[in-house]
């Protein structure tokens, strides 16, 4: 006989949020997270913030090179 699992606690839902956003959780875990989000306003806030934080990290990528760095690295390449 299988026991129907109860709702997961916030700690468990939060632990899975980023993997959930990555679609890297199993279908069962996805369902559990979504069930939790359906009644937990705090974790919905956590989810929104996780999305913001991901976007924030992704926006920190490459920028222009400082001129002295560019000069040094281009010189290095030219001397290869």
């Amino acid at each position, binding site marked *: 006989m299988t026991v129907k699992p109860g709702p997961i606690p916030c700690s468990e839902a939060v632990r899975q949020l980023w993997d959930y956003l990555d679609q890297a959780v199993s279908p069962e875990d996805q369902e559990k997270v979504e069930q939790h989000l359906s009644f937990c306003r705090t974790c919905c806030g956590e989810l929104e913030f996780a999305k913001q*934080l991901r976007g924030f990290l992704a926006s920190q990528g*490459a920028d222009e*090179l400082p001129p002295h760095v560019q000069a040094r690295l281009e010189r290095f390449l030219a001397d*290869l």
Partner: protein
Amino acid sequence: MPQPGLGIGGLMVEVQDRTRESFQRLATAELPALYWLARRLVRDGAEDLVQEALLRGYRSYATLRQDAAAGPWLKSILVNVFRDQLRRQARAVEELPVDQVEDFSLYQTLVEQDPLPYSDTLHHDYLRAFAREDVREVLLRLPEIYRAALVLRYMDGFATKEVARLLEVPLGTVLARLHRGRKRFERELWVYAQETGLLLKGTVQ
């Protein structure tokens, strides 16, 4: 075109030159991405890290099948160099920290402490207060194993499986490092702003 009478030796030199030029061209285009990745991985010596990666890349340029894949390829070489450096330092790196990190929620802390009382979009504005160099400082406070996983996954956009391959650890280890790394990063985002008075600097009103 080879000059008549150049001989096989001269021809080889010309082929090498062409290879060198094509490597230089493709590496030049990747310099910003390589440099900024290196800057997030190490506090000092980012330029040396890039140079070592360029040198190794040049030596194994023949193994690159498509020039279009040069970006990820050079980045993976740079991560190799970084890993070798870590190994040489032979510092014991904590894999499983026992602390309260797991319980820290930046989202909740911001709700409870409300550091920007006039903001309607508190969480968004809080993150916006961090300039690129602030984010780097926060990252550098994390142990390398967490930092490297976070940077590669969320800033440089490698898939989790790729991160595992780059760092030469099992997938489960990467997932655990990402989880702990995120929590530590959240906590350090909070602590750093407190310590530096970031929110008082007038970047956010």
